[in-house]
């Protein structure tokens, strides 16, 4: 695993997230659930806790967008880059953006939203890319069944290096 330069991390245990908009590809309830489960991937192994907010700003702002979307890192249409997220910090820090030119999917008919979101939230929390194939933070998309997904040891070691273990 790798962390970003200077190992930025959140200096608090309780983080907020907000789903700014939705993809037309999936029912809203599924997007809500995929995002919640993707954050749980990380809260299950650390002391971090996430709370959803629906108004104002949140630590992690989540949105779907196409092409240029105001952050200086335009998306590239279908394929290629699927999503990106920013390391912990103020403003854009922690935010996660998903390319709405992709076909987002509950399973593997398109790009699985849960798997990509869990990866992006790793960045939101301070993990960079791993070069361990099979790790969630490996940069290439690969489908695994989200219902049997387990966090790879490399990801667990990385996030626990930043935040410690879940004592509960």
């Amino acid at each position, binding site marked *: 695993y790798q962390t*970003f330069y200077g190992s930025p991390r959140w200096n608090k245990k309780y983080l907020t997230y907000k789903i700014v908009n939705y993809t037309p590809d999936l029912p809203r309830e599924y997007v809500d659930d995929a995002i919640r489960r993707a954050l749980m991937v990380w809260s299950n192994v650390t002391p971090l806790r996430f709370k959803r907010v629906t108004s104002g700003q949140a630590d992690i702002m989540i949105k779907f967008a196409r092409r240029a979307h105001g952050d200086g890192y335009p*998306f590239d249409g279908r394929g290629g*880059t*699927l999503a*990106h997220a920013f390391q912990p910090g103020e403003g854009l820090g922690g935010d996660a953006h998903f390319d709405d030119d992709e076909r987002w999917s509950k399973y593997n008919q398109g790009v699985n939203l849960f798997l990509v979101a869990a990866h*992006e939230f790793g960045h939101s929390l301070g993990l960079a*890319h791993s070069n361990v194939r099979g790790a969630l933070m490996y*940069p*290439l*998309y690969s489908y695994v069944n989200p219902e049997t997904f387990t966090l790879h040891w490399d990801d667990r070691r990385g996030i626990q290096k930043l935040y410690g273990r879940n004592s509960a």
Partner: protein
Amino acid sequence: FPIPLKPALWSNADLDIVQTYLNKFFPLLEKHPAISLEERIKEMQKFFRLTITGKLNAETKTIMQQPRCGIPDVAN
């Protein structure tokens, strides 16, 4: 100085694919401002544990064309 690649070895399309990919995911760092394209491909091949050739072989091109996260692969 880095040795320039022989143009005959690269089609324009390949060169465009490689440079776009490397600039985005393996950007040049200030401490290494002048490394050659071949060295940058080697860095990418090393990260993905491919055969290190410094060339755009089929294996390397396949990796470059796979769907992926938009964050660079070098932590800095």
